[in-house]
């Protein structure tokens, strides 16, 4: 398979803390890869490394055949990688439409302003924000802000989308809606790397799962395999019964009973 | 040759006072991420305090330290409530502008009353003479006092309850609030402390060099250089940075006209920041 994204022995240290340790995996084009792990396992740091917010201390990151290790964030965006943030980062005083237009203007397509506005509208419509285009971002609810993060990332027409806990803080209806949106995004040809703590959601969405613990890869494979893996159960899921339950519940994403971390 | 070493040593003595000044700046910075643009003027206020108290009340110079310290503290608390309190939670641009505007008012009032008159406080103490070089007594006393105050500040921050609470607020304001620390009160105390330190350092500098109302800018720049060298929010670093700056000044001033010293320090400031965005001894942000 020609990997869209390849991480090769990526390592990142912060002082004495080894946040990401010798991590390697690859993503196929068009797949949804779920990234799970206990809090502090290094998931968001990994996103920051891919995005270029920090450079790895060792290892390489290759995207669509191009070595993007250590490139600045705006160059990474040009390659076609977009992300949402765990703690939403709206462009506060700008409207929903303007937020998305920024994404469309400066993302992979690098569109001129008028075409970017159209792409922005389309992205906003995809997540259901088209009724609030001229509302300032600060007036949105938390769910609205999360949708804005997503719409803004999509407006850039990325090839790879990094979703960081995009379901956190949403109620069951909103979660269901968001999951449907994510599936639609993948169907439109976008590859997705998703961090999520909502077990049922991520297990049902993902084609494959990578489990991180203390910055290292603990397991990798299909959701069902990973849920059965005793190391994963011990480190993360904690409860063999829950693991069995999850196995049985494949395909039922979006139930409100979130698993405990 | 010894001349240069003597100059450097003298520079270190004065540098300790600069370090004290910078501690005032970095205390406020570390606790609440606010850059106090009245800092230079507060230093001048300390100088004026020295001048007025020795002139009007005939106080002995070093005895003005307690009133300047206490007065500075209350001025700082007032500054917090006037210009800083409402800026918490707003973009950092805003607190920069609010302290800047207070500074405009203060400098404007100061120059309206005193103009650009040069003030000098005569502090004649026996100096220390080694070989052919005399280290002015005032420099030595100022350095010692600065070091003592710095040590007291360190002890306060690390060994008293209030000090620990301050450090908690610096580290993570929300968490500190959640464990029951009255953060607003502590923020006010921090600004009070920062201004008090600025004032005291001004009082000490007043015993060393003549000054005008407008001298604040130069000393403020020095405080920024020291802070950058020593790490933001790091009082010990500030003292070390002060020593480093003093060392540099001592080494450079024999060769360079005085008006260029500030320019050199500014260039240093920018270059160091470009190379070390967190300062040279970058301690973790928000830690004291």
């Amino acid at each position, binding site marked *: 398979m020609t990997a869209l994204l390849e991480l090769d022995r990526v390592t990142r240290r912060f002082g004495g803390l080894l946040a990401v340790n010798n991590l390697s995996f690859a993503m196929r084009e068009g797949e949804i890869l779920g990234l799970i792990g206990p809090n502090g396992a290094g998931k968001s740091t990994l996103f920051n490394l891919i995005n270029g917010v920090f450079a790895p201390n060792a290892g390489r990151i290759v995207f669509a055949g191009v070595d993007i290790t250590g490139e600045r964030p705006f160059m990474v965006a040009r390659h076609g990688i977009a992300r949402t943030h765990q703690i939403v980062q709206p462009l506060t005083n700008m409207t929903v439409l303007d937020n998305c237009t920024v994404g469309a203007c*400066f993302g992979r397509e690098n569109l001129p302003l008028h075409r970017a506005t159209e792409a922005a509208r389309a992205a906003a419509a995809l997540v259901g924000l088209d009724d609030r285009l001229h509302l300032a971002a600060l007036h949105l609810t938390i769910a609205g802000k999360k949708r804005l993060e997503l719409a803004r990332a999509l407006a850039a027409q990325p090839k790879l989308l990094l979703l960081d806990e995009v379901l956190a803080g949403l109620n069951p209806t909103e979660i269901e809606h968001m999951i449907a949106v994510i599936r639609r995004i993948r169907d439109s040809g976008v590859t997705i790397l998703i961090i999520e703590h909502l077990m049922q959601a991520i297990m049902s969405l993902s084609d494959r799962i990578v489990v991180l613990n203390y910055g290292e890869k603990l397991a990798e494979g299909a959701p069902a395999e990973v849920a059965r893996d005793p190391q994963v159960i011990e480190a993360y899921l904690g409860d063999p019964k829950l693991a069995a339950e999850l196995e049985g519940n494949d395909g039922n994403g979006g139930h409100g009973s979130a698993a405990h971390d | 040759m010894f001349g240069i070493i003597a100059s450097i040593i003298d520079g270190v003595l004065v540098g300790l006072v600069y370090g004290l000044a910078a501690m005032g700046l970095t205390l406020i910075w570390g606790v609440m991420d606010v850059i106090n643009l009245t800092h230079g003027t507060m230093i001048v206020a300390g100088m004026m305090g020295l001048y007025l108290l020795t002139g009007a009340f005939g106080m002995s110079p070093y005895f003005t330290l307690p009133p300047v310290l206490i007065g500075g503290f209350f001025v700082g608390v007032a500054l917090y409530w006037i210009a800083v309190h409402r800026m918490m939670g707003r973009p950092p641009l805003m607190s920069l502008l609010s302290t800047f505007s207070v500074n405009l008012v203060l400098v404007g009032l100061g120059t309206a009353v005193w103009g650009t008159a040069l003030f000098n406080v005569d502090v004649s103490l026996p100096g220390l003479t080694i070989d052919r070089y005399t280290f002015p007594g005032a420099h030595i006393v100022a350095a010692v006092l600065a070091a003592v105050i710095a040590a007291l500040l360190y002890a306060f921050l690390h060994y008293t309850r209030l000090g620990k609470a301050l450090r908690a607020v610096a580290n993570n304001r929300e968490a500190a609030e959640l464990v029951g620390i009255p953060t607003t009160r502590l923020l006010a105390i921090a600004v009070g402390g920062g201004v008090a330190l600025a004032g005291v350092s001004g009082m000490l500098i007043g015993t060393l060099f003549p000054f005008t109302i407008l001298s604040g800018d130069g000393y403020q720049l020095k405080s920024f250089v020291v802070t950058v060298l020593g790490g933001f929010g790091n009082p010990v670093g500030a003292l070390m940075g002060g020593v480093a700056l003093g060392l540099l000044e001592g080494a450079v001033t024999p060769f360079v006209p005085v008006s260029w010293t500030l320019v050199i320090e500014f260039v240093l400031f920018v270059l160091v920041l470009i190379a070390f965005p967190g300062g040279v001894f970058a301690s973790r942000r928000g830690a004291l």
Partner: protein
Amino acid sequence: MLRRPFFWIIALVVAAFVVLPLIGNNVELRESLALAAVYITLASNLNLMLGYAGYINFGSIVFFGLGGYICIWLVDAHHWPLAASLLAAGIGVSVLSLIFGFGILRLRGPFFALSTIGIVEGVQAFAENFKPWGGSSGIYISPEVFAPLGGPGPALWVIYFLFVAVMAASLFLSYGIKISKFGLGLLAIGQNEDAAAILGVPTPRYKALCYSASAFLPALAGGLYFFKGAFIQPTDAFDLTLSTEAIVICMLGGQGTVTGVALGAYLYEELRGYLLTSSTFSNFQLVIAGALLLVIVLFFPSGLMGFIYSRFPRLQKVLE
């Protein structure tokens, strides 16, 4: 841009500046409008950094003063015509600020702001020691330079119209940037620089371009200002008062808005004129400016336009 109503509002204001003083040869009005034009020029260009990109430039006077020096020097020592000297001043200052900009724009918000003050002090120290520029005594230009403009009297009119032209360019520039892709990127940087970078905004390049762009027209204004006075010296050329006033004007009118800056400049000039006639201490000028800025920052951070837009939201579609 021509299709938008706001373009024509600006054009109308510019026309008023051109026509009004001509009525009855009103020299007093002309001088007052000339000053307003200078304030509007400085504030609009400052607004690019402050209101759009969110970077405070405390030392924007350096563009004005340096532009003044280059223009005066070319006119006096090398006998260049005014137009060429102005252009050279503008280009020279823009290029220099592009170079400096790449350095200091790596510094985040507050540090950038502080370094802009340092730049002023550095350039002033340079001017005070640079013999070809007269050192601390400055440069006087002889009245002959006004001859090609028709003599001192007509020259003042020519200079006035040039001031208006520079002001017009500033207003159109800040409007044009605001509705462009470049402006959108700058605004994104001003809202959240890290998020903007992740979204693909090329932050270093945009900031440097913005800084350099904000230097060009003030340099021209400086060249005109000091040419008109026929004299330039370091303490006048690099007096931080003017850049401070520009900041107050931006905040007063509403940072990030084009209308606000123009309104703010007009209001501030009125206030200042009133103060200067009622007290002899020019230092009170800064006290009032400081107090005004404090009140704005504490209670009306969106300035006048913010207040107006909250009362009349529909105006936001027409005005910028």
